[in-house]
């Protein structure tokens, strides 16, 4: 299962046995909770009550880095830890703590994403909780959220996502800049601004001071590792390991005082920056951007000097990949259902064109694929870009990796993604630099603000249900909109156009509320997520003296996430065909059957009609066009809205569309009653832009053809397609070649992104029944990978129900 794809090994520089041991340890890692960060930040905040928030947070960051336990993972060449143990989740009480206290005794009992926690840790957390009462980000959000938003949430139309109670994350630092300047250089830039800039505002002064504090702290953190490595070296009996530790000690002693001096230093730095951002705040989707591009100069130089072999580079990348799995995040249970499998969504992108349009694929692109072939762990979330100019050999290695069944890499097609980015008004050479931030959300690395994709989820499935009841929600009795002007669920649509107009009315209404919710969260985060360290790594923040949330970034676009566009399209198609064209059903009959979840013989007859109506994913223009209309209705709406940063500096500050909706299609389904497409109440909605579960009957080419008819080149927030093949479908050289060409055809067919699970249903069923036998079965969930055994049962079922494509 694990093993190299196509690389030929010519020396002993990469220790494969050690990688195997490290990988196995990481597979059997146990998620725990660590109270250390929470305790330190509480003490630090108490000490610095009077400081501006950005400085208070910077000082807390410094205290954490100075005081937290550090360790070097066994065997590793890449060091740095987020919490006191491997895979322990630190706690961020400043964002929210009520749920933590409430769930303390539940963490280890969860059906998915369990965390073990000891009594001592619980006690420590309970002890600090009173300090945060009324002071957290979540407290502020809840204070400012309008009652009507809460009603929309009760209906199940809106779901307040992570940024209502945690940091944002979703940053790709400008790694080229960070590697060229080091923390020392970045500190110097902040100092120069403080010294030389005229008329600095208090906000700017505070930002620069905070930036300096965080850079100093990061450098001290490095020096702690220099000392630690030396101590371990002194105690180490193994000659090779001792020398490695001594090398590490030397490296850490000067690391990031200035420019990275070697490929090794550059890899270590990238990992450290990532890790430090995840100590500073608790968002997720901190991503690596185009690793093969910004690392290339360091690789090339060391290779030319004879200081680095390809094998050694592979070893370093592999260790780096493994270490990204030592990090963790704990979310409240209701959010966990939206994002099962301990995901961090740390996307790392390889391949694709350079800004000048030539092929950027290089040795490192291949080495990253090889590193993933050796590790097969959920992080980083590896993605590959390709275009007409990509080498077939690269795509073949991509296919070989996909064949291994880790669900990676997901693939992005430049010819679709670049025009999508340009639809925001970006210049072509800028758009060509895109990378994925998290799952499929595309952004320009180092130039983009936090991208809070989908942080207020809009449940499209629920909206189409409400359309069928005049805006009335049968399960809660709440009616926020009376579509026909009268209270109650009666509907009298005279034509399909009226139904579609009702859809658009409700969509507008609930999107207004969703954006309001985003704004409430964002305004609170301006204060609570004042992240001087992370902001300093993104273009324009240091120049402007502003954090990202205050408008520091060069560009700022947020994509609103929606769940269930295929359910909506399939439902509209059923209504159009059965009610208005063939007149086999009246609206009343359909509504009544839905209300009773298609129960009874009459219900079954109606459901049969609904199920046999055209379904998206079968290359049927009738319904595919309707699904495209659903997308267009949202694409038309979103640019009308502004983010909180509008007019404060960044270019853009508007909304765009994304179908990156992680596992939310499962819990969102819980809230939706029966729908006109024949879907039963509480069943999952569709994932991303994929067809509804098991609705696609014509095989993968038909799925691609259906998706190709969607406005993919306007989906600047990312379009998520997920397909499942049996392992036999990729077995053998001939099949591999066909699969490679199949991906290539998808690119020509206007597919934004595609990801593949290579596992058969039988295996999944067995793994669900006997998780202990399948600790390393990784699946692509929705834009990211997770170990199957860590998912909750409903999410497991949804993956099993995905159409399985086999060779025939």
């Amino acid at each position, binding site marked *: 299962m694990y093993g190299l794809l196509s690389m030929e090994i010519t020396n002993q520089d990469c220790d494969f046995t050690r990688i195997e041991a490290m990988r196995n340890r990481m597979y059997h890692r146990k998620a725990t909770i660590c109270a250390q960060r929470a305790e330190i930040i509480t003490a630090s905040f108490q000490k610095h009550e009077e400081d501006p928030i950005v400085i208070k947070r910077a000082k807390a960051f410094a205290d954490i880095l100075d005081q937290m336990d550090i360790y070097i993972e066994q065997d590793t060449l890449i060091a740095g830890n987020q919490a006191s143990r491997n895979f322990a989740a630190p706690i961020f009480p400043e964002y929210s703590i009520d749920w933590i206290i409430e769930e303390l005794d539940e963490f280890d009992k969860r059906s998915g994403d369990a965390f073990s926690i000891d009594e001592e840790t619980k006690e420590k957390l309970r002890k600090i909780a009173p300090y945060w009462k009324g002071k957290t980000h979540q407290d502020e959000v809840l204070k400012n959220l309008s009652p009507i938003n809460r009603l929309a949430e009760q209906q199940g139309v809106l779901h307040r996502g992570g940024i209502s109670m945690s940091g944002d994350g979703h940053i790709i630092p400008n790694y080229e800049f960070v590697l060229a300047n080091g923390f020392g250089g970045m500190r110097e830039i902040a100092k120069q601004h403080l010294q030389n800039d005229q008329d600095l505002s208090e906000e700017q002064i505070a930002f620069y001071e905070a930036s300096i504090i965080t850079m100093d702290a990061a450098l001290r953190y490095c020096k702690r590792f220099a000392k630690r490595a030396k101590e371990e070296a002194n105690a180490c009996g193994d000659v090779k390991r001792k020398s490695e530790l001594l090398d590490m000690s030397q490296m850490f002693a000067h690391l990031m005082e200035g420019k990275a001096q070697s490929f090794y230093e550059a890899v270590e730095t990238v990992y450290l920056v990532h890790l430090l951002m995840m100590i500073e705040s608790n968002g997720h989707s901190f991503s690596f951007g185009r690793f093969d591009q910004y690392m290339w100069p360091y690789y090339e130089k060391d290779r030319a000097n004879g200081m680095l072999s390809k094998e050694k580079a592979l070893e370093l990348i592999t260790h780096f990949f493994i270490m990204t799995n030592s990090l963790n995040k704990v979310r409240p249970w209701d959010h966990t259902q939206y994002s099962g499998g301990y995901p961090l969504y740390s996307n790392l992108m390889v391949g694709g064109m350079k800004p000048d349009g030539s092929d950027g694929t290089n040795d490192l692109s291949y080495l990253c694929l090889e590193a993933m072939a050796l590790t097969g762990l959920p992080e980083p979330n590896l993605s590959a870009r390709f275009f007409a100019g990509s080498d077939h050999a690269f795509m073949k290695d991509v296919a070989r990796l996909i064949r291994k069944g880790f669900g990676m890499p997901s693939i992005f097609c430049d010819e679709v993604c670049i025009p999508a980015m340009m639809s925001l008004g970006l210049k072509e050479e800028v758009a060509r630099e895109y990378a994925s931030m998290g799952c499929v959300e595309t952004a320009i690395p180092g130039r983009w603000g936090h991208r809070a994709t989908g942080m207020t989820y809009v449940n499209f499935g629920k909206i189409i249900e409400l359309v069928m009841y005049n805006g009335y929600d049968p399960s809660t009795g709440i009616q926020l909109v009376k579509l026909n002007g009268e209270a109650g669920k009666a509907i009298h649509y005279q034509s399909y156009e009226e139904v579609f107009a009702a859809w658009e009315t409700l969509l507008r209404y609930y999107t207004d509320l969703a954006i309001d919710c985003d704004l409430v969260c964002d305004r609170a985060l301006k204060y609570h997520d004042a992240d001087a360290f992370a902001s300093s790594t993104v273009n324009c923040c240091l120049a402007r003296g502003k954090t990202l949330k205050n408008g520091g970034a060069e560009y700022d676009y947020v994509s609103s996430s929606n769940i269930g566009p295929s359910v909506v399209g399939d439902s509209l198609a059923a209504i159009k065909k059965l009610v208005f064209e063939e007149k086999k059903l009246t609206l009343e009959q359909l509504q009544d059957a839905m209300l009773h979840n298609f129960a009874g013989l009459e219900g*079954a007859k109606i459901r049969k009609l609904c199920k046999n109506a055209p379904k998206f994913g079968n290359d049927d223009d009738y319904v595919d066009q309707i699904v495209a209309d659903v997308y267009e209705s949202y694409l038309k709406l979103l640019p009308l809205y502004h983010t909180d940063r509008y007019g404060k500096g960044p270019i853009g500050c508007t909304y765009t569309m994304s179908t990156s909706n992680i596992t939310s299609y499962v819990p969102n389904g819980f809230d939706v009653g029966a729908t006109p497409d024949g879907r039963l109440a509480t069943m999952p909605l569709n994932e991303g832009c994929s067809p509804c579960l098991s609705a696609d009957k014509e095989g993968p080419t038909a799925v691609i053809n259906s998706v190709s008819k969607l406005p993919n080149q306007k989906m600047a927030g990312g379009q998520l397609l997920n397909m499942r093949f049996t392992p036999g479908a990729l077995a053998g050289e001939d099949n591999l070649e066909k699969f490679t060409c199949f991906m290539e055809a998808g690119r020509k067919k206007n597919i934004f992104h595609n990801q593949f699970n290579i596992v058969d249903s039988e295996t999944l069923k067995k793994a669900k029944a006997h998780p202990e036998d399948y600790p390393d079965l990784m699946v692509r969930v929705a834009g990211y990978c997770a170990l199957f055994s860590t998912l909750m049962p409903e999410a497991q079922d949804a993956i099993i129900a995905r159409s399985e494509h086999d060779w025939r």
Partner: protein
Amino acid sequence: MTGDKALISKIQRYSTKDGPGLRTTVFFMGCSLRCNWCANPETLSAKPQVYYFKERCQHCGLCVQAGNGAISFDQVGCLIDRDHCQNLAEMVELCPFDAYETVGMWKSAEELAEILLKDQTFYESTGGGVTFSGGEAALQSAFVLHCAKLLKQHGIHICLDTAGYVSWEHLDALSDVVDLILYDIKAFDPLIHKRCTGYSNEKILDHFIRLVQKKVPMRVRMIVVPDQNDDVQDLKARIDFVAKHRDCVEQVDLLNYHIYGIGKYEKLGMIYPLADQRSAADDSLKWLLEYGEAKGLRMTIGG
């Protein structure tokens, strides 16, 4: 055929085993042979068939009521007396739970070509195309010719999958249009052939030679079913025969027997002739592969 329409059981997109690249395979209904191991029994008859999925049945009783005594409740699903049921096709519409499904759709050559062209990008990217299979596609040569000509206007690569048991005129005309013939040779010995397929194979072997003489590119497909047509001498004779005419044979695909068709028999209310049949071991054809290679043939297992 009614008018200029043909009865088709399935249009299978993304086929990978029916010729080069990714293909769409069209399964025509109606067959001139009756192979004991047939994996597509729904294509034997040239009339629409009805599948019955008993696990979908909810015992609502609608079909029992409508069946005039030919349908009765069973423990799971219903028992259908197909010999006496006059209105089975009506159950497809009647059953609220989709336990009945029709197999067989009438398509004109134009309708079919439109569907087949949908995957043109995939054919082009993978060196694939369209395969006419069945049943016996060559039985409907006029229709296939018509459709093939429509596809040829778009430069589509076309395969004909045939067992050759049709009149020479049909094969002759088709071989002028298609790019590649997948030619089944199910046995060399006429007696074995007759025992396994119901008919002797003189015509099949003769047609093969004629196609070779016409220099029609071919891939030969040889199914091997344990205890049916796996006699060692006969297998060698099949290979020897092909090797003798190998100029036009670009590849020989050895096809291992599988039992995937068994569920279809049950759904069609048919008896599976090889009910106790064992599957072959995965590597049981390796020797034959090597035997063929030694004779200068390009061999595969599975295609």
